[in-house]
């Protein structure tokens, strides 16, 4: 399976600042996604990270708030901009890969963000 290294694992940030989360995969993957899990909530898809082009955002999420980069097939970043306490969540990257004739689905270990 694809192995994801997600950094940082956690951070405490001041409101108004920005944090960039990195997701590195050990192999080329078909698709990469960014999710958010707010306290007591289910995982919510933020956007699909597209290689070499702008990310595709889900309803309620915008590029100015959550800029995403994906310069190649193994790496992506999510920035949480101008943070407020409401942005305190776990952020996870997820990949879909094709190997051995089947599709696999993997998540990173997540970034626990606390905004104070």
């Amino acid at each position, binding site marked *: 399976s694809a192995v*994801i290294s*997600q950094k940082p*694992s956690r951070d405490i940030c001041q409101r108004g600042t920005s944090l960039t989360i990195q997701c590195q995969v050990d192999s080329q993957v*078909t*698709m990469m*996604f960014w*999710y958010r899990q707010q306290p*007591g*909530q*289910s*995982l*919510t*898809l933020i956007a*699909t990270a597209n290689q070499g082009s702008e990310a595709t955002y*889900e309803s309620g999420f915008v590029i100015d708030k959550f800029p995403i980069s994906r310069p190649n097939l193994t790496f992506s970043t999510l920035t949480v901009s101008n943070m407020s306490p409401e942005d305190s969540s776990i952020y*996870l990257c*997820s990949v*879909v890969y094709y190997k051995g004739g089947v599709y*696999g*689905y*993997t*998540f*990173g*270990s*997540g970034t626990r963000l606390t905004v104070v």
Partner: protein
Amino acid sequence: DQQVKQNSPSLSVQEGRISILNCDYTNSMFDYFLWYKKYPAEGPTFLISISSIKDKNEDGRFTVFLNKSAKHLSLHIVPSQPGDSAVYFCAASADEGTYKYIFGTGTRLKVLA
């Protein structure tokens, strides 16, 4: 509106017995479903999937059942082991090709030794 619901936030089962985790969905367009397991401080781990053309998929101790008419799926773990203690999420997609999934809120399973 929660399109994927896991109405039991927690479940306790004795070791060796069957664990049954349930998931209901409202969108009849959903046609591909996944189950994930999540340990504390780790990301969700893919367990098993099922497409709407099937009503059952089995992988070792894990079996997923899909009842399309009832918009209900369940994950059976037999026999349950203490290492199965985790939070289990079901997820549904209306378009397998996009791999965009809607997740339930999870059920915390505790297997008692």
